[in-house]
């Protein structure tokens, strides 16, 4: 990859989109293109609007250029953990733009910091002359002006999508939620929880997008709806850092963010859907992960025929932007159910920034136990920062879920579901977007406006249990993120080896004990 240029990547991506298939089927295996191959560039084909209205040219709202989409496609296909041709750079304090530019000139090819994007004091820089960011950042870090440089890592969501089912939410009983709600009935509306994820749909509307439908492009109306189990009034204006530029609403086209948000704060005792933990808290949806359908809309809107089908991804620049944005908006709890291998200074700094702004962060430990169990990021930073907790998953029997990482500094355990421990009933249940409506393998014209029972499992599902308890604790007056972490650990039910261990950390979160605190003698 190191010798590839972005042009090659684009060509490869174009080939990727054009490759295979006869264009007649709708299944994943049969997907392909029947139209002309190659990049068509520009945004004139993208449409966004509501039914009954004249579709307007909204292409410029997309944050993603065709080139960048192609780079992501390449990364996805080759299972790269970074975006080709991009680095994140932080200069030392006091370095001027001129000196910074000099440092960047050490890279091959033309590099202009003005073409980059600043995220706080971190620069997201395209490196057209060197698309391997490991090499590019390795060169940059040698420069005296540079504090650190790293690839723009791609993180992935830590859930395994599974079958819908109608089993009970055993996971809320497991952390003693019914008794915890007696103490604190869902928290208060002044606690803002940010779900930094695939988004949580914050508007009910139909948008018209140009989509590849197997043989041609069509303007397809796609309906979106707010989760009926989260009142619209509880949404605080979110932000999309992957699909759109600013000013457009957040839309979840994966279902992951919706499920995670549901566990944290879905309405409870309202006769609808399922229960959430901090059901009075406010929700800040921050979209940092693009799902298959996000990518499909991007490439189709750019006139690239074919289906994406490469999976979702969460670039570091969006994660960094999203965490900073959440903290700046006053979020007191941030949930990060995502991660990936390697270290990331950008994520570490973003986490430190969030805690410095008074936000507690819950991070999924990762689902790679059976795939090498390597320590991932940002999970690895939980133990480094008081106020950031890395959460492993347990199943119904309070045993570590088969997938839950143990080597990434797990600090606490929470129910994440385990299909090997009770089958579908052993997963985590929430009211979510009806998966059959947008199943990428079988649907060409998706819809995201129907909600039903969704069961998922993963450390992605465990982290929001901790985030929800943190939100309740915050509403009870424990406002220091480090104190929230200390309380959750202190009152955890010890599992596994006595004391702190790599499987369960301090143990299983116990919401009731945590919210109840201590008297003098007991």
């Amino acid at each position: 990859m190191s010798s590839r240029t972005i042009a090659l990547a684009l060509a490869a991506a174009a080939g990727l989109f054009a490759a295979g298939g006869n264009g007649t089927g709708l299944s994943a295996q049969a997907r392909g293109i029947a139209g002309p191959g190659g990049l068509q560039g520009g945004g004139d084909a993208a449409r966004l609007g509501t039914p009954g209205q004249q579709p307007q040219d909204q292409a410029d709202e997309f944050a993603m250029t065709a080139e960048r989409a192609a780079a992501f496609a390449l990364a996805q296909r080759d299972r790269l953990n970074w975006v080709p041709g991009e680095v994140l750079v932080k200069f030392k304090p006091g370095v001027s733009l001129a000196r910074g530019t000099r440092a960047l000139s050490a890279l091959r090819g033309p590099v202009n910091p003005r073409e980059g994007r600043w995220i706080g004091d971190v620069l997201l820089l395209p490196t057209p002359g060197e698309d391997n960011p490991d090499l590019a950042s390795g060169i940059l870090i040698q420069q005296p002006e540079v504090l650190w440089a790293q690839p723009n890592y791609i993180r992935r969501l830590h859930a395994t999508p599974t079958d819908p089912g109608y089993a009970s939410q055993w996971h809320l009983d497991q952390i003693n939620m019914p008794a915890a709600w007696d103490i604190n009935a869902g928290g208060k509306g002044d606690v803002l929880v940010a779900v930094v994820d695939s988004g949580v749909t914050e508007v009910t509307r139909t948008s018209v997008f140009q989509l590849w439908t197997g043989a041609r492009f069509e303007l397809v109306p796609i309906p979106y709806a707010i989760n009926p189990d989260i009142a619209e009034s509880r949404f605080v204006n979110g932000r999309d850092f992957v699909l759109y530029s600013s000013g457009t609403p957040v839309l979840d086209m994966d279902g992951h963010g919706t499920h995670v948000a549901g566990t944290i704060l879905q309405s409870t005792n309202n006769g609808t859907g399922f229960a959430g933990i901090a059901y009075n808290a406010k929700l800040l949806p921050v979209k940092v992960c693009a799902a298959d359908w996000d990518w499909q809309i991007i490439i189709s809107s750019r006139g690239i025929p074919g289906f994406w089908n490469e999976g979702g991804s969460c670039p570091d620049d969006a994660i960094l932007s999203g965490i900073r944005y959440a903290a700046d908006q006053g979020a007191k709890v941030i949930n990060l159910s995502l991660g990936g291998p390697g270290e990331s200074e950008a994520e570490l700094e973003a986490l430190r920034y969030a805690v410095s702004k008074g936000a507690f962060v819950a991070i999924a430990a990762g689902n790679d136990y059976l795939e090498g169990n390597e320590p991932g990021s940002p999970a690895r930073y939980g133990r480094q920062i008081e106020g950031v907790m890395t959460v492993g998953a347990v199943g119904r029997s309070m045993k570590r879920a088969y997938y839950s990482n143990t080597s990434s500094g797990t600090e606490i355990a929470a129910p994440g579901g385990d299909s090997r421990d009770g089958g579908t009933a052993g997963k985590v249940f929430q009211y979510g977007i009806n998966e059959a409506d947008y199943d990428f393998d079988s649907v060409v014209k998706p819809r995201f406006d129907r909600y039903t029972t969704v069961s998922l499992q993963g450390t992605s599902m465990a982290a929001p249990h901790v985030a929800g308890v943190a939100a309740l604790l915050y509403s009870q007056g424990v406002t220091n993120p480090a104190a929230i972490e200390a309380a959750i650990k202190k009152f955890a039910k010890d599992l596994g080896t006595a004391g702190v261990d790599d499987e369960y950390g301090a143990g299983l979160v116990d919401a009731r004990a945590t919210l109840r605190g201590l008297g003098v003698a007991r």
Partner: protein
Amino acid sequence: MTKKIVLVVVLLLAFAATAAAQQVRVNHNRTPLRAEPTSASLVLEFYQAGSALDIIGRQEGWYKVRDPKTKVEGFILASLVDELPPSSTSPPRAPGQPGLPPSLRTRTGTQPKPATAPPKPKAAIRAFADVSSVWMTAAESFTAVTGSDSRLQYGGGVQAVNLWKGLYAEAMVGYSSLTGSRVFVYQGTVYDLGIPVTITFTPIDAGGGWRFPLSKTLHAYIGGGVEFMNYKEESDFAGADDDVSEVFTGLYASGGLEVKLAKWLHVRAEGRYTRIPDALGGAGVSADFNETDLGGAAVAVRLVVGK
């Protein structure tokens, strides 16, 4: 200095002389004191049997005497009186002295009081009420939960004093209550979780000590004993084993001053120190603060009723 000593000696001698003055005792009622040593002379006064009069002279069957109270001098027929030896200690027996108010009757005799030991104090049972301000040893724990490291305790009990010399025994029951809320403590910061807690202390003390008289109305005392502290901690949203109701045993030492306000009423100002080890510190914030002692130092005011 020498002059003072001499003066004291002289006074003592004079007192001794007075005390040793020879007297007669009247042995018939209505014995007349006459102005002259003759039965025809004027009667100055009549004396009842038992009255004592100072001899100031003798004259053929008559004594010249002086009434030690009225200082009236006259003559009394020798056959109507008995001469008393100079060191006589006979108590005066002169009820019914005419013309004298009762309060003066005791002055009939001028002999010094007999040199007996002061009366032995009798054992007595008393009841008391006690108000104490207690500063608890587990100060950080109680401050975190209740906002204060002190409590006001009301109590009552009984004392038995003068059991043997200054020895006394006592028993008391107290009661004190605090309210607060459950907390979480992190790096010295206390986070109030808003869950109400009620803590009650019901100590039962049994002990004793020694009283030292400092004056007729003031005693000092020092003592100690055993305290059985019934400690209860109850909070909202408690489960089966979440509340605490246990009796812990400790020791106390006390001391103070006792002032007699009236024959049956005394007030005590007392200092008390109680140690109840290993009652706390197993869980709760007391474990965080590593505080194990449920006792404390107290100042108390006691109103005691009884002799």
